[in-house]
Each structure stands twice: as structure tokens, then as C-alpha cells.
């Protein structure tokens, strides 16, 4: 049993979480195999997370890291 674009749209969070039932997962996969528009949308939605994981994570500035570690009395091995 396949699903419609709207049905897939309603289940997208679960689809991206991998928490659909086996039957739903198969129906979603079947729909994506034939619907170019949904395939692009899912790919872009997954790409958003990848973009942020690759380029959007921040690093505590080294000087601040050292200052905070010192204030906390931690020995983190930062020279």
C-alpha cells in the first residue's frame, strides 16, 4: 500500500526519525520511489541538518574555554 504526498508530509518527522512502523516505512519508500517532488523535499530537509552539523556547530573560543575551566577548577589539559 502506497501513500499520498499529504500522508507522507504528515509523517515526515517520524520518517526522518526512523520511527515509522514497518508498513508505514515501506509505503513511504514506495511513494518516494515514484514522487520526484517528495524525494527532493525529503532530501533537502535531511540536508538542512547535515549543513548545520557540518558548518553550524560552534566552538567555545579557546581563551574563554581556558578562563571558564580555570574558574571551575578543572584541569582539561588546555595549556
Amino acid at each position, binding site marked *: 500500500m502506497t501513500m499520498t504526498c499529504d500522508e507522507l508530509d504528515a509523517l515526515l518527522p517520524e520518517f526522518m526519525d526512523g520511527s515509522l512502523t514497518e508498513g508505514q516505512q515501506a509505503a513511504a519508500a514506495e511513494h518516494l520511489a515514484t514522487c520526484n517532488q517528495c524525494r527532493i523535499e525529503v*532530501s533537502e530537509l535531511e*540536508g538542512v541538518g547535515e549543513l*548545520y552539523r557540518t558548518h553550524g556547530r*560552534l566552538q*567555545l573560543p579557546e581563551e574563554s574555554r581556558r578562563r571558564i575551566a580555570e574558574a*571551575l577548577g578543572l584541569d582539561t589539559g588546555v595549556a
Partner: protein
Amino acid sequence: MSTAATSQAPAPLPTLEHLFTEFANGVYTLAYRILGDRYLAEDVVQETFIKVIRSLDTYRGEGPIAGWLYRIGYREAIAATRKRREQPTEDDELVRRADRPIESVESTVMGMELARKLDEAIASLSDPLRAAFTLRDIEGLTTAEVAAVSDISESAVKMRLARAREALRIQLKEYLA
């Protein structure tokens, strides 16, 4: 103590140094994404780990320690937004608009430009959407952990994630081809 005896004992709690090394950047990312101000975000990191130091003994191993620690960081960041709202300073908005973390993982011009676009796009989300997206899609917590950190239901998390991802997808379309 023998190796065999050690292997049967409960897993020891990670040291504070380990937690700081492992999660300081994550708490900083979360706090910065919520507050949009690197100095306030740094304060949140420090306050979070002060609370971790005070309460690590009370952590009983229910659930991953990342969720427990991010919950403290999230509460600190939300408290900082409330404090700023109640006690605004003249240059708060100026700082919020101009401030960007000076130490980015990106070093190329193109990378810096992309980082700026990502900053602007995520800053346009509401606080709840930004927090849910940061915890789930950037920091990698599970939906259940995000729900526990934020004190909301899993279905509310899913709704926030769907709205956040869709808004970001539209704004960042040129980078998603």
C-alpha cells in the same frame, strides 16, 4: 581491584574534565543559538558546569548523561533570556545583531559566508523552534531526550522540528541542491 571485579561494577561517572571537554562546545552552541550573544552564551556554559559540579552526585544514571547535562544548559539559557527580557540594556539589540562567535570551525571565505547564512537563517526561528532544532539536528539528541530537556511532549518536539526544518529548508534552498 582486579580487572574482572572492575568490569562487573557499575560504570563510573565521567569526570568533570571529561564532561567539560565533551560537552562545552555543545552547551555553547545551544546557548548561542538561543541567546544570539556569545558573551551570554559563555556565561551559560560556566553556570551550567557550576550546576553540574554541584549536582553530579545526584545524577543516578537515568538516561544518557548528555540529556541530563543539556537539560541544565537549556534551563540556564532560558533563564538568561528571561533575565535579559526583564533587565534589558541599551545595547542588547545591537549586540544581538552584530555579535557572531569569532571562532568558527570555518576558515575559508566561502565557509564564513555559509556560516553567516546559517546563523541568519536559524536566528529567524522562534526560540522554541531554534532550541528543538539545535538539540535534535545539531547536537544529535533523540526526540525523547529533546522532549525531556525542554519539558514538552514528543509530539510537540516533532511539530517544532517539522516547522524549523521546513523554514530552514526554504531559506537555505540554494545550499541544498
